[in-house]
Structure formats: C-alpha cells, structure tokens
C-alpha cells in the first residue's frame, strides 16, 4: 500500500471506543500524526457488543472520578464530536438484597456524594416511582443516581473515529500488529501485515486481545477475556427510563432510545475468546429477569449475542505507561466497564503521552500493582 505510513508520533492498537477516543484526544491536543491499527472493522471487539450503560455509582474513588469525568464529557459529546451518540440520563437503580450490601452501598454513596455524584438511597415506594413495574419483593432497598444513563457505544465509537480522522489521525482497518520493536530507550516501531511504522509511542487499546498485544512488547499483563452474553427485545413504548441492575444477581437491563430493551447477566466463564451465544444462558437469564420484572413475560426476544470482558484480577483497568518498556501505554483490562469510562480515560492517557499530569491520578492503575500485591479491588462490578 502506497499510503501506508512509515512513521507516526503515536500508534494505537485497537479501533474500539478506547483507541479511537485516545486518538481524538491526542489530535485535540495538537498531536495529529496518530495511526490506529484495527485488525477487523471499527467496533469489532468489546465496544461492538457493549451493554450501553453509563454508571457513576462505583465503590472506588478512582472509578468514581473516571466515571463522573466521563459523564461530564458525555453530556456535551454529541456537540463536541458533531455526531448524535444518543446520550440519555435516565438514571441507574441499583438493587440491594441484604444488609451487607446496604452497608456497602452506604459507604459507596458517601464516597460518591463527596465527589459530586448525586446518588441516594430509595425505598420501595420511590423505586416504584422510578420503575413502576418492578417487583419490590426481589430487593430490600436500592440506590439511585439520576445522572447515570445510556449512550450508544457504536455511535460513540464512530463519532470518536471520525473526529480523530478530521483532526489528522489515520485509521487502518483489517490491519494487524504483528510485532513491536524496542531497544533500551523504549518502543521503536510496530510491524504490521501492511508494513512497518516507526514510532516512539504505542498504545495498547486492544480490549480482549490486550494480553497478546502486550506480549508483542515483551510485557506480561494479567488480563484475560471472559465471555458475557446480552440480548435485545422488540421495541416498546417507553416503560421506564432507568437502568435496573443488581450486583448480586449480576443482571442489568435498560430500555434504549430505540425502544428495545438491552439486557444481560454475567456468569463466571473459563478465560477464552469464545463469544458464541448459548440457549442455556437465555434460559438462566429469563428466570432471573422474571423475578425482578414479571411484567415483561410477554416481551419478545429479538436478538442474542456474546462479547468479551477484558478482565483483570481486581476488576480495575490497567492504565498508563509501562514501567518495563518506555513509550508503551496500556489502556486495557476494563473488566466490563470500558465504554462508560472511556471519555475520561482517553483524556488521561492523552495528557500522559504529551507529558502533562492527567486530571485523574491513574498511577495506582499501573501494571506494576499486581507484582507488588497492591490490588485496587472494586466492590461494585456487575457480572
């Protein structure tokens, strides 16, 4: 290919929402010679199979900060990127099923409120106002944050990709990174199936394939892909605006702007790249759904699919420059919540690359934490 670049300031491996948002934030900061390598189509990995929720109700300060910062960005992203990303703030209703969960949620809410996230406890009556058909026998209390909500992951991905391209970034689809060349000064080049690009910065934004891509640079990270399944229903007139989730059951469901419900439930799975759908999952999911929202029994399932979480041992992402290879940055291991924190993550990674201090301190999320035993365990992960 004649137009395949021989050099770039930054090479990003992965054309999902994480890679394209980092590319956009770099071009916005004047670093325009950016190349994205995508081994398939745009949104072919986790972003293209995402459950579309945007939540700030986290139990770790860092996750709250990344999520709140991302919501602040999401609120204006349609205008900023000139592309309707279907951001809606219908809230998140988080069900608590026992006293231990209520105690945890009390801590979470105190933390969230201290960071400007307007979450609160709601009783059965208020839960029914927020979600009229919910079965209150299924939970004790709930927490609710009205500024949580939904964005369309595919459109957000396309929006970032196009904005990055307008800023000068080049995207090569169906192009695979095969090797990363380095020396004692750090990263030197990325070898692809279309040619070699010399660069001083490489960003690993490869989602489910993050471990394989890190290995190209000789770096061992403890991430692994884990299948998660979702479904979508026929569209209905609007029944309720909120997302409903339960960490105990592992379920989440939300009526998206199209009118269909997008729903999922997590199961522990063997680490591998299998993302096929199963009928066993559909049966399991249906049983759990009808306990919470029996009114949906006559709703029709239209489509079922699977995708990968990119998991870490503590369910927190690995962010920032590698301590082992200078110029190699990870933005991986999001463990099922990469889409919702992508906007702020992208700002942080872009600021680091250009040599500034990121607005959220992401240093505890370095890959070194696993070797030191300094895990940052997030108590509020769904699935």
């Amino acid at each position: 290919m004649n137009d395949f670049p021989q050099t770039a300031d930054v090479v990003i491996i992965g054309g999902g929402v994480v890679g394209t948002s980092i590319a956009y934030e770099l071009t916005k900061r004047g670093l325009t010679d950016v190349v994205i390598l995508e081994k398939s189509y745009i949104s072919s990995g986790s972003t293209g199979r995402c459950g579309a929720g945007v939540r700030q109700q986290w139990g770790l300060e860092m996750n709250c900060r990344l999520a709140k910062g991302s919501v602040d960005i999401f609120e204006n992203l349609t205008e900023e990127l000139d592309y309707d990303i279907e951001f809606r703030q219908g809230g998140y209703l988080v069900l608590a099923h026992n006293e231990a969960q209520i105690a945890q949620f009390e801590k979470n809410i105190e933390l969230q409120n201290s960071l400007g996230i307007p979450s609160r406890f709601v009783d059965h009556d208020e839960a029914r106002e927020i979600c009229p058909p919910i079965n209150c026998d299924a939970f004790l209390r709930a927490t609710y944050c009205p500024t949580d909500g939904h964005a369309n992951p595919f459109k957000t991905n396309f929006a970032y990709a196009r904005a990055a391209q307008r800023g000068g970034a080049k995207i090569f689809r169906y192009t695979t990174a095969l090797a990363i060349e380095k020396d004692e000064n750090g990263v030197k080049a990325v070898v692809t199936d279309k040619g070699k690009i010399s660069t001083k910065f490489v960003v690993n934004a490869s989602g489910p394939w993050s471990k394989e891509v890190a290995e190209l640079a000789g770096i061992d990270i403890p991430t692994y892909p884990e299948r998660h399944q979702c479904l979508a229903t026929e569209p209905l007139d609007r029944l309720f605006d909120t997302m409903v989730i339960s960490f105990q059951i592992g379920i989440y469901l939300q009526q998206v702007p199209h009118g269909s419900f997008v729903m999922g439930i997590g199961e522990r799975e063997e680490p591998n790249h299998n993302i096929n759908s199963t009928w066993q999952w559909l049966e399991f999911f249906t049983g759990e759904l009808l306990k919470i929202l029996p009114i949906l029994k006559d709703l029709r399932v239209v489509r079922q699919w699977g995708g990968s979480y990119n998991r870490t041992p503590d369910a927190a992402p690995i962010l920032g420059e590698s301590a082992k290879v200078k110029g190699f940055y990870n933005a991986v291991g999001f463990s099922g919540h990469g889409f919702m924190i992508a906007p702020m993550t992208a700002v942080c990674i872009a600021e680091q690359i250009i040599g500034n201090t990121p607005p959220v301190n992401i240093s505890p999320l370095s890959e070194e934490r696993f070797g030191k035993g300094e895990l940052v365990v997030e108590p509020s992960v769904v699935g």
Partner: protein
Amino acid sequence: MKEKMIIICRCEDLKLDEIRAAIADGYTDFEELKRFLRCGMGPCGGRTCLPLIRRELASYLGVAVEDIPMPTTRPPQQVTTFSAISIGSTEE
C-alpha cells in the same frame, strides 16, 4: 427519487438511498453499517436486507458479492417471548 421509495430493511424501515448514503459516508463493512443503521438487528435478523446490502457493498467496493463478509447469525431463529422460554425451560 426512486431510491427513496425502495425499502431495503423492513424491520428498521431503511430505504435504498439511506443505505447508499451510509456506504458512501465510509461505513463500508456490513458489521459497521449494522451498528450505524440497525439493518439486520430487527426481527428478521437480516434475512431480507443482508443479500441486498451485500450487493450494494460489492458494487460500491468493486468486488464480488462473496467477498463481502457475512455478519454473525444471531439467535433466536424466531422472535420468542420470555414466557415461552420460561415454560420451555421448566418443562424438561
């Protein structure tokens, strides 16, 4: 004018002009088109629109229809209510 009258995707009510505009706008992979326009995401699962859109993509890209990759086929084969799934799973 005629392109506005030709329905390609009945489930999501997409006309030929919308499909062609999206392809010309750079969504040149069926999987990307699907995520942009929802073609193939409705009750028929792409049975109607997929062959038509593959032909459009092939003609735009100047390749053979069989060179346009097929998207993943999604279950269920027919739209199914949760109660039918629930009854089915308790009748084993």
